[in-house]
């Protein structure tokens, strides 16, 4: 075994490159060859926890009711901006069953999200935390909130992106509302624009999308006098632990975070929010478990969103080459301190010599953004890929042919590094065939009913998803010969639990039902958050190494018991196989008394000097009713190049889910805020319309499937984000093809489609 060493690792997370110091031990395994399927990996497997989830046996944070548990509820600001001058909680405190009230005048100092106070003296969005009550029941806690009298001094606010960016807007931040959020250049776009044969200059808008995971944010905190245990609906148990230990001034070892099952996160649950700090503070004060879960309304006011954007794109071309792209963006970050930069795809997707992009973050009196499934890339791809089609139309080139010409490069233009694997052209070929691209006609074709036109559109996707260290796994055997796999990740709903079990079973030589996965617990060695499509590509290789180690040990032990040489033994689906004999592993293990065999594995760093990316393309076929503006998405073909597919069934479901969520973004999902009141008018599921089963088109999922053997020992990359990225642009392009009208604002509601049709002289 090679010695332990300390090294640097450079990994991508949600479009940004991060460098970290990692410890490496031992040697990595080579990735399996193309077409080398195991008994489990590469085969469609239903989720190992599927039965528990659909029968209701799975316990989610919301379901947890501990003995003696109290309930906390939060009073939220009814104003978009105000100074909290006085809080009188005496009536609430006097109510029998109320156990405590916290507000800005009595709460301890807490470091949270770069602020020093849990409750702001100036509340800065409608829904900002003002006070919290803990009581014997949730109903009582919520009733007690109505008894708290708060005196506010209302201040001028601004909630709308474009209003906030205008010089006349009230300054929310002392240094103005518009901040730099990154820029990038290569070549000379000004010159290329000047010298171009054709240019376009277009503005796009995307509205605020809200996550609306099935399970709202929530936590149950329990302090035992020395240590805090927190059950939280989270996509990063370690992320929650970090934030809580800092907020509460505890040592890492004093905080344990658990998440066995969770009802979705989509990026909004990578860290935690004030409700978990509130539950913890109350628990530490009262010595009883405290539950604090958000209502749907609170979820949609104060637990993250995808920023609205305004984006201006200028494209230049000469002959059949795109010569320049200029992209300037403004994102409504609300009270967030960062922006999900929409220019990532512009900077990296196509071989264009001259690129310049500038991103701005705009502060408003609205809830902070949070990561939302491909943050920035969804918004940016909608604009970029719409613009590519607009340019193609202008210069009379087939939009797919135009993309093909700019998708050949083998190196990442931003770093100059070679791609470990890039099969974007294959995605185009597979998708074009599947949708029938050759039948696409400029101007669309006749639809299936009077006044309906049919069109085809497509768009491409680039995203990271290579994962990286640190990530660890251990495997040990029970005396019955089954294995327990421990990993420090959680299953956000993507099927991580099943995928790691498949990897483990195959590597050892067990049946899938002989591997039990323990995850969602900070008592395990570290695992990454389930975000940025990094989970499987980070933890999977560590699992494989741990399983490999465990297998070697168990074979050696079996050799001792069976009195044969280890080299003569194999493990096949739970059986120890030697020449002429098959012995169940359990029979061997029984003879070992309580000796326990433990395999360990870690994630090795990514290869130096290579760019790990995922690519893909979506093709859409739509019909549009020219008189009513109704869009009928008939079919989406999704082709992704994400390396080896560990579980084709789960992978297909990932893609379907991504597309459905993208269709919400494309067609109906939009936070509506009254500017005067600063109020979200649809913080509910009535007028915030997520797609229903009836809105889901035929979806065809294809994978290039070739393992990325340079990426890691599984040859697998991530798939969480890729499928949400290109669908909206593909639909917008299909709508434009069908109708001749371009809708430049997502979601493409009736009002916007009808307006675009009427602008184009059609409706």
């Amino acid at each position, binding site marked *: 075994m090679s010695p332990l060493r300390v090294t640097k690792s450079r990994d991508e997370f949600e479009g940004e490159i991060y460098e970290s110091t990692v410890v490496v031990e031992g040697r990595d395994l080579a990735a399996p060859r193309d077409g080398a399927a195991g008994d489990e990996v590469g085969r469609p497997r239903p989720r190992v926890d599927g039965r528990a989830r659909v029968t209701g046996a799975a316990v989610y944070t919301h379901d947890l009711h501990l003995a003696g548990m109290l309930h906390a509820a939060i009073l939220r600001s*009814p104003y978009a901006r105000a100074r909290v001058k006085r809080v009188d909680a005496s009536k609430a405190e006097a109510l029998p069953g109320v156990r405590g009230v916290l507000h800005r005048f009595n709460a301890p100092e807490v470091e949270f999200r770069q602020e020093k106070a849990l409750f702001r003296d100036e509340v800065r969005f409608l829904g900002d935390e003002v006070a919290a009550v803990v009581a014997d029941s949730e*109903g009582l806690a*919520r*009733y007690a909130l109505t008894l708290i009298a708060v005196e506010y001094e209302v201040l001028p606010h601004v909630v709308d992106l474009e209003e906030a960016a205008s010089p006349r807007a009230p300054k929310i931040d002392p240094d103005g509302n518009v901040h730099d959020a990154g820029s990038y250049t290569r070549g000379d776009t000004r010159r290329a624009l000047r010298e171009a044969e054709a240019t376009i200059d277009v503005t796009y808008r995307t509205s605020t999308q809200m996550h609306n995971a099935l399970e709202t944010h929530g936590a149950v905190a329990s302090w035992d006098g020395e240590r805090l245990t927190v059950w939280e609906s989270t996509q990063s148990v370690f992320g929650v632990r970090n934030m809580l230990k800092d907020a509460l001034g505890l040592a890492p070892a004093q905080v344990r975070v658990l998440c066995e099952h969770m009802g979705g996160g989509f990026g909004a649950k990578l860290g935690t929010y004030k409700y978990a700090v509130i539950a913890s503070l109350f628990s530490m004060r009262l010595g009883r478990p405290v539950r604090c879960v958000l209502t749907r309304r609170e979820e949609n006011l104060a637990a993250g969103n995808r920023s609205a954007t305004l984006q201006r794109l200028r494209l230049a071309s000469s002959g059949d080459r795109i010569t320049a792209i200029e992209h300037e963006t403004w994102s409504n970050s609300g009270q967030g301190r960062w922006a999900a930069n929409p220019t990532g795809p512009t900077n990296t997707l196509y071989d264009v010599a001259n690129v310049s992009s500038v991103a701005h973050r705009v502060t408003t009196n609205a809830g902070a953004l949070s990561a939302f499934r491909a943050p920035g890339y969804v918004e940016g791809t909608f604009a970029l890929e719409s613009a590519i089609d607009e340019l193609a139309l202008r210069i009379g080139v087939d939009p797919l042919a135009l993309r093909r010409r700019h998708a050949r490069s083998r190196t990442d233009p931003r770093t100059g590094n070679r791609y470990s694997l890039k099969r974007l052209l294959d995605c185009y070929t597979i998708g074009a065939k599947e949708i029938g691209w050759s039948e696409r006609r400029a101007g669309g074709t006749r639809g299936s009913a009077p006044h309906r036109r049919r069109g085809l559109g497509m768009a491409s996707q680039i995203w990271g998803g290579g994962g990286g260290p640190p990530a660890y796994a251990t495997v040990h055997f029970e005396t019955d010969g089954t294995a327990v796999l421990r990993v420090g990740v959680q299953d956000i709903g993507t099927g991580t639990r099943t995928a790691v079990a498949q990897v483990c079973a195959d590597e050892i030589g067990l049946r899938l039902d002989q591997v039990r996965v323990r995850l969602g617990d900070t008592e395990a060695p570290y695992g990454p958050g389930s975000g940025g499509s990094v989970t499987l590509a980070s933890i999977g290789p560590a699992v494989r190494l741990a399983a490999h180690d465990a297998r070697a040990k168990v074979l050696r032990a079996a050799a001792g018991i069976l009195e044969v040489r280890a080299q003569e033994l194999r493990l096949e689906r739970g059986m120890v196989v030697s020449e002429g004999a098959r012995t169940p592993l359990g029979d061997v293990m029984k003879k070992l008394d309580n000796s326990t065999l433990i395999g360990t594995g870690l994630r090795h760093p990514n290869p130096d000097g290579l760019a790990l990316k995922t690519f893909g393309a979506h093709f859409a076929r739509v019909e549009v009713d020219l*008189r*009513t*503006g*109704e869009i009928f998405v008939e079919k989406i073909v999704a082709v992704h190049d994400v390396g080896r597919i560990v579980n084709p069934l789960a992978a297909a479901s990932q893609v379907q889910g991504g597309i459905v969520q993208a269709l919400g973004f494309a*067609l*109906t999902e939009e936070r*509506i*805020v*009254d*500017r*005067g*009141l600063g*109020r979200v*008018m*649809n913080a509910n599921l*009535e*007028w915030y*319309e997520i*797609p*229903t*089963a*009836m*809105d889901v088109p035929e979806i065809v999922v294809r994978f290039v499937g070739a393992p990325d053997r340079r990426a890691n020992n599984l040859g697998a990359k991530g798939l969480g984000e890729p499928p949400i990225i290109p669908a909206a642009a593909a639909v917008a392009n299909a709508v434009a093809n069908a109708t001749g009208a371009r809708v430049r604002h997502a979601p493409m*509601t*009736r*009002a916007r489609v*009808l*307006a675009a049709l*009427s602008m184009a002289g059609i*409706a």
Partner: protein
Amino acid sequence: MSLFSYTKPRALSEALRLLRGGATALAGGTDLVTLVRHGVARPERLVDLTGIEGLRGWSREKGKGIRIGALTPLADLETSAQLAKLLPIVRESLRDAATPQIRNVGTVGGNLLQRNRCWYFRDEGVPCWLKGGTRCFAVDGESRYHAVVGAHECWMVSPSDLAPALIACDAEIEVASSLGRRRMKLADLFVAPQGKRRREHALREGELVAAVRVPEGALERRGTYLKAMERKAWSFAIVSVAASARIREGRARDVRVVLGGVAPVPWRVAAAEKQLEGTALDDNACLAAADTLLDGATPLRDNGYKVTLARELVRRALRSLAG
């Protein structure tokens, strides 16, 4: 959420006595309960009508048309093959109303008397005109789903899918109170809030709707219902149209056109219907009638598209009666 008392009487007379004393009627609760939960309605006493015999189910009496009990679940109407033969427009209007689950619980009376869905109205924190405040926030606020025509102080729209369909069938309602019974046209149940009248319905204190009646004559007319939604299911109408007519030798008689989602009441204009009498319901006649229906429309900032949409749906609905 406020505290309230709850009674579930078995006799209609008992319910009427309680209503007279100021109690609020509760049917399926799919609307009222959410209003209470969100602090918009604050009833002190609830009378659950679902235990009363005789208010549920529908029947046909020869020559006298159809009578539908007010407590009939929407799903019963929607799934009845017999009713679909007699009055297909009812099934059409319910097919896209709410969800199957809500239709199982929600009742005919409750659907007609449901409160409007204006997001300012439904938000406890907004003291708008209809709730006794001084102004309508939709007028210069977020108005994409609000009224384009027929509004006075309040720009909400009548949300029911069933109401336009039944009005297009000349439906009447039986209203009961402890003082007796009266009949009125269903169309007259709906009133645009105006002046001192800050409500959507014309029921008096202590009254309930016992039944809906569709006269025999309406059964001879063809009818259809079209609904435009933002997504393909589980949405209130952006615009809807109920139309019915008798077609004799290719000519339309007794035409009714009622719009949902565009005005504070199910929107009907006598002149538009008259204009269509005797026509072949050709495109020009249909569009001219649509223009009459929408004459005087004054869209707000965000809802001008509803006029385009309504025109086209009116044309399509009427054309389909002809064909």
